[in-house]
């Protein structure tokens, strides 16, 4: 789901980094520093989650866990993801420094969508809501990724379709993970989901 170094053109880099900086500043401003441990743990979860690889055909996709992260910490998730993205780029060459803004846009939106779905007041359909937290977060990330690639030039149009299509299994998988994880946490430690 990360965009690698050297993929985006200059205009896209400037635009996405600008949006990324604004989103990150807002996230840092809104972060509750008394509850920073939760942000730290979820940053680590994202860092690890991106290495869980699922081979699909000749390619492979990886977990995001953005829906879960967003459900836990809301807007602070952008800050958490930013730190993890820097380390992934630095230590594994995964993503890149110039594309940090684009990756923040993609993954940050996924977290915020996850949070939005999680806060919907549908108590009777809690299980469906938990599933949709994961499902829609990956859906939104895939959409933003595809839009960025499509806007990057005609050469990337086919790649943008392929990138979206290849993430469909991950949408379902993350939905199932979110369902079980949120159900379990809501049962044993619901306080972690309240903020």
């Amino acid at each position: 789901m990360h965009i690698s170094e050297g993929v985006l053109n200059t205009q896209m880099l400037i635009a996405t980094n600008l949006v990324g900086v604004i989103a990150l500043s807002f996230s840092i401003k809104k972060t509750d520093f008394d509850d920073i441990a939760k942000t730290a743990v979820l940053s680590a979860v994202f860092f690890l989650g991106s290495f869980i690889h699922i081979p699909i055909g000749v390619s492979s996709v990886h977990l995001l866990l953005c829906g879960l992260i967003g459900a836990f910490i809301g807007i602070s998730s952008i800050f958490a993801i930013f730190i993890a993205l820097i380390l992934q780029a630095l230590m594994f060459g995964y993503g890149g420094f110039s594309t940090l803004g684009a990756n923040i846009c993609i993954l940050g939106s996924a977290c915020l969508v996850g949070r939005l779905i999680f806060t919907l007041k549908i108590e009777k359909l809690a299980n469906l809501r938990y599933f949709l937290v994961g499902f829609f977060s990956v859906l939104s990330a895939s959409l933003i990724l595809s839009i960025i690639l499509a806007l990057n030039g005609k050469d990337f149009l086919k790649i943008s379709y392929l990138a979206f299509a290849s993430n469909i299994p991950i949408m379902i998988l993350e939905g199932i993970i979110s369902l079980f994880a949120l159900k379990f946490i809501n049962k044993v430690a619901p306080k972690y989901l309240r903020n």
Partner: protein
Amino acid sequence: MKFIILFILAVHLNAHSLQILSVKDEEFLNVKVYFTQDIVCQECEVKIITQNETLTYKTDKKGKLKIPLHLNPIKIIATEKLGHKKILNLSKEKIAQNTQIKLPFWLKIFIGLFIILSFFLGLRWAKK
């Protein structure tokens, strides 16, 4: 929270960035394009830049490719279908070397986690 951490640790962890390994023998430069040792980049486009021209090849099912040494390749650009890309500038020192950082994968993961947790703890301490 424990559930998530245990779940993640229980699943096999793999790196995702595209990597190129180039090893020279008498006649060929043997190139392997891969994500991890287990997941290779099958049928990936590989551009070989020589001093005079750019040649385009595809890796086989094992992510491998043989380049005749007489072409004198100076740069290899591998591109995967989803847009992952890796550029390897070949120099005498770099051929036959794995391009990954020498640290083991699991150690890099632990260092990364340590840095993340230390950063946020440091931030909390600074705020107080």
